[in-house]
């Protein structure tokens, strides 16, 4: 069964536990700025929206990589940065229309969500079930996929 992150922004309280858990898992430090998942704050609406890579089928980042440094993990469906191959050219950071591949100047490489190899720490850390890791066939995931299509329709649809 393919699993995916399901984000229900209405349940997010902005506690940033997900960011801390992600940073600790991936960087060994508590630094929200190094998190692969980020919470965006909407002051006017009084809302918080957690957002990270949807592991979209189009995989703009993977397509754009000139050195084969982003791979598809068949077990999780994640698109994963291969650190040893990444040269740090950053093309993927502008190719991803969701803004979820970022440059890490400390390492000179890029970072993105890899679903923690199938056991995402953000979902485990979320106290309100705003982030859950669920069967990918759930409707929420399909909605996220629909956004991916809306972003660049026309240049990807394979007739």
């Amino acid at each position, binding site marked *: 069964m393919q699993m995916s992150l399901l984000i229900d922004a209405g349940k997010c309280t902005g506690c940033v536990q997900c960011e801390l858990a992600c940073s600790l898992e991936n960087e060994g430090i508590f630094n929200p700025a190094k998190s692969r998942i980020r919470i965006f*704050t909407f002051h006017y609406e009084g809302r918080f*929206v957690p957002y990270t890579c949807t592991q979209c089928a189009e995989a703009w980042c993977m397509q754009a990589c000139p*050195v084969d440094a982003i791979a598809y993990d068949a077990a999780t469906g994640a698109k994963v940065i291969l650190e040893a191959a990444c040269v740090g050219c*950053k093309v993927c950071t502008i*190719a991803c*229309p969701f*803004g979820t591949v970022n440059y890490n100047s400390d390492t000179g490489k890029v970072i993105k969500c890899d679903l923690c190899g199938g056991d995402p720490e953000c979902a485990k850390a979320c106290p309100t079930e705003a982030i859950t890791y669920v069967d990918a066939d759930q409707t929420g995931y399909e909605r996220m996929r629909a956004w991916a299509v809306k*972003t660049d329709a026309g*240049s*990807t649809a394979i007739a």
Partner: protein
Amino acid sequence: MLHVVIGAGPAGVTACEMLRDLDAAARITLISGEPEPPYSRMAIPYLLVNDIKEDGTYLRKSENYFPDHQIDVQHISVTAINPEDKSIRFEDGNSLDYDRLLIATGASPIQPPIQGIELPGVHQCWTLDDARAIAARALPDTSVVLVGAGFIGCIILEALVKRGCQLTVVEREDRMVPRMLDNTAGGLLKRWCENQGITVLTNTAVNQIAEKKNKLSVSLDNGNTITAGLVITAAGVRSNIDFLTGSNIDTDQGILVNQYLQSNQEGIFAAGDVAQGRDFTTGGFAVQAVQPTAVEHGRIAATNMVKPDSLSYPGSLNMNVLDTLGLISISFGQWMGNADGDSVVLLDDAQYRYLNLQFDGEYLTGASSLGHTQHMGVLRGLIRSRVPLGIWKKRLMDDPTRLMEAYLGSVQSLV
């Protein structure tokens, strides 16, 4: 079906993969004009500082990747195309028939018309062969003159500094990277480079290069002369279309293609730096010569090669990212602005941070930045989705850094 792809850069390789995906039984031949396995020119700066070996530049890393996908790679130059009998001719006189042909021959550096440009020690930085020649000469304390401060000049600048060279950059135009950055951002980048010990001469041209006691003497139009051990020219690129003379394939700056990336000749397509395809933001036709466009072209052309007229194409968004000695510049679409469009600029001069957004009515159509590296891809999402920004336009005018919020609020309706 016989698919022939000329050019083994990102456009050609991506096209071959797409052809294989869509047509398992097809015969696919990929023709490379260089001896190495298909590789990325973008990786050359990292090769020059030994971050990677030559195999680190290869577009596909697994050994036998091309044979495993039944893509027949041949290393030979193509000298002519004959659409009449659907064949191409090679430099050795042999020819090859095709049913569908993709021309993805890329671009080559422009050789500036400077006396002495052919002297030993004057190089361009384009191929792996060029990189080897530069690595042999760019030794610690070597005086290097870099002619051209455009994208390619800047991307190799860091490598030359890291190799310990004494660097002088000579740019004819009034600022660095004039195709990506406006005066403000170009000026900031120049100051950034100068603070790291590089001499940057804008509004300056090279008049002549001469040999002088095993060194090169570079004469500038400001009357000064620089003695150098190595001169690197990076004065822009031009589509490789000369071999098409007599083929009846329509060209301008590059090969003219329609919305299916097909040329005026049936069954002949073009992709990447050689293709003059539609530009998403201007609606016109341009050679963009950037990696994301090359890959996009490759996929779309291949799809239409397998199923004619099946995938129409609204155009590629021009985009670029450049790391110059650690200062990262990014540009998207109409970064230079729209007639009568609103714009907003955020500048932190001391911190070398700059962000410029360009609107056309309710839409974001372009942006450029210095020193911003987080979530910048969302600019592509905001521009490409063509969703009216509504309230988010005013919010971006008030605080242009709230790009992710604008995207999540407008395009994805998450708020």
